[in-house]
């Protein structure tokens, strides 16, 4: 199916959606927001240490999903070394806090900037190659960062990792218990969701979507492909860099074990299972990941890898668009154009183009 007829079909489906009475639609949307709010506030009314900790993990994995979603979901680039940026965020914070007396606030932007710099350095040579080569190169990059974390002992503490910085605080309120980190992690998820959503609808986002749909056509249409791919890669790195710092503070330690290939694989699984390109989808993917991982640690032990890879395989085979698929909506003016004169819409569908 060519691009035009795909667009038409989408338009028809969008039309069908519009025919749902607006009141029902609004009610549905508010119901969704209410549900999300109840879910997000759960640690406060569930209390204790366990739930806030789990919910913080969900928020962090939601952010990881959102960041990687820019790379995979928006621009269509398979990145198998994404957690390298998470590692950079964590280690930058640890170094800044331990040896230079920086606070989390000061260290987070530095970590994000260094993640972006790293992504540009690695992205520049790699983004010219084909999609499958890129996947392998990012895998190699993730490996290098992992081994660097193990071996550059003066910077990373080697196998043991870095720990022992003083308790971080915000406005005199210390980050001591998991419930203190939760709003921070959740805030980051919300910001990441809003920013990446805005980006998706922007000129850059449309360029990404063109590149993802058909790289050759996008190039022919004058889109500077490599530059836009690099943007996607860099924007994606920001969120891992920021989340990595919060994760370090929460765990009280940064060590190589958190940045293995397995973790990067799980990040990819979060995006694919949640729904490439969909904001709600990848956040849900992150939440599901934490729930399943937690459940598995408790009940199934080492089966986690088996279950995860099988789930991912099932999703790719049976529901390749993910649990909550991203349905790009045609621009409003185009919709209005067709809605005002339904004949135009249907005429456009039945008629094949030459």
């Amino acid at each position, binding site marked *: 199916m060519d691009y035009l007829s795909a667009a038409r079909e989408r338009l028809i489906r969008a039309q069908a959606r519009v025919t749902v009475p607006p009141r029902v639609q609004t009610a549905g949307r508010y119901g969704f927001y209410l549900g999300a709010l109840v879910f997000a506030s759960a640690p406060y009314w569930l209390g204790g240490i366990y739930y806030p900790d789990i919910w913080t993990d969900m928020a962090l994995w939601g952010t990881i999903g959102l960041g990687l979603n820019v790379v995979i979901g928006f621009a269509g680039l398979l990145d198998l070394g994404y957690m390298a940026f998470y590692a950079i965020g964590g280690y930058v914070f640890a170094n800044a806090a331990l040896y230079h007396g920086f606070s989390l606030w000061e260290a987070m932007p530095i970590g994000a900037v260094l993640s972006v710099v790293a992504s540009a350095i690695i992205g520049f040579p790699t983004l010219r190659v084909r999609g499958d080569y890129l996947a392998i*190169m990012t*895998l190699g990059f993730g490996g290098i960062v992992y*081994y660097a974390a193990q*071996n550059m002992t003066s910077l990373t503490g080697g196998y043991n990792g870095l720990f022992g910085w003083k308790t971080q605080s915000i406005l005199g309120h210390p980050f001591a218990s998991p419930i203190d980190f939760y709003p921070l992690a959740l805030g980051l998820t919300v910001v990441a969701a809003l920013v990446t959503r805005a980006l998706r609808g922007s000129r850059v986002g449309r360029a990404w979507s063109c590149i993802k749909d058909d*790289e050759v056509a996008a190039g022919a249409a004058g889109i500077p492909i490599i530059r836009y791919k690099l943007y996607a890669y860099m924007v994606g790195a920001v969120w891992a860099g920021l989340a990595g710092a919060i994760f370090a503070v929460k765990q009280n330690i940064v060590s190589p074990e958190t940045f293995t290939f397995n973790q990067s694989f799980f990040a990819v*699984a979060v995006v694919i299972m949640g729904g490439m390109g969909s904001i709600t989808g990848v956040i849900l993917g992150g939440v599901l990941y934490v729930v399943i991982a937690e459940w598995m640690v408790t009940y199934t032990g080492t089966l986690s890898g088996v279950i995860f*890879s099988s789930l991912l395989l099932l999703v790719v085979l049976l529901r390749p668009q993910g649990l909550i698929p991203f349905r790009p909506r045609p621009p409003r003016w185009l919709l209005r154009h067709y809605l005002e004169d339904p004949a135009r819409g249907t005429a456009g569908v039945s008629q094949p183009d030459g």
Partner: protein
Amino acid sequence: MSLQELLQQIANGLVVGSVYGLIALGYTMVYGIVRLINFAQGGLYEVGAYLGVFFFTLMGKFGLQYPIPAVLITLVISMTLTGALAFVVERVAYRPLRNAPLLAPLVSSLAMFFLLISVVQVVTGAEPLTYPSVLSPAPLHLGPIVLSPTSLIIFFAAILLMVGMQQFVRRTKVGKAMRATAANREAAALMGINTTRIVSLTFVLGGAMGAAAGILYGVNYGTVTYDMGEFGGLVAFTAAVMGGIGNVPGALVGGLTVGVLSSFASTFLPNQWNEAIVFAILILILAIRPQGILGERVAERA
């Protein structure tokens, strides 16, 4: 470094390189036909290595310890079983997605890889397993170079398998059908070639080569670990690209080159950097010369 050390490092590199070359053969054959990096290849290599331990041990129990027949029987059985597994991989993770965008089969083969190594991890409890020592460890002196008889046999076995596979693809009728399918799948079907079956066969042969590599690796180093598929898979992929992916003789050239390079890396740098260096070589090769040393076609598929 003295000349003697240099030669020794080259010899060591050639031995590991021949094993990488065997894994690379699996990547390159599958890639040549379906233009897909079959990530599962690293997992098949690992499964083959573990099946090897299992059958060696089993034969030991039945008193079949005379080394060469034991190696041969183990090779044949494990290669067959792993080939069957590769058949399943193709059926499940590739065939339903062959008209989907490239990302889908890439992710599914990645998931397959992860599934295979996770199953190995669960079944073996993540413990490294020991290969029975096959030959007497007395080293052989070849001029200035010292090699164990085992590694010498491994080298020649790997080369033999690779050359055999190359001849199979070049000379036999089925091999020609494989090359025709790789060159132009539709035209091959018009000749009456059942290209679906050829694709299956290619996965199976690739998996069998991976299993052979896993066993030879195990015999050479004495232990296998559940994460060997990850590193081995990556290095072998580098080898495949280096030799020009899709190019069957290239897999051997690429494997030996990567083997020697990583052997040098481990001489000049502290041991723990060995793997990072291999990854760096991989990125450099892919970035600088994606068509490989032999420079055969790099067909574009967006």
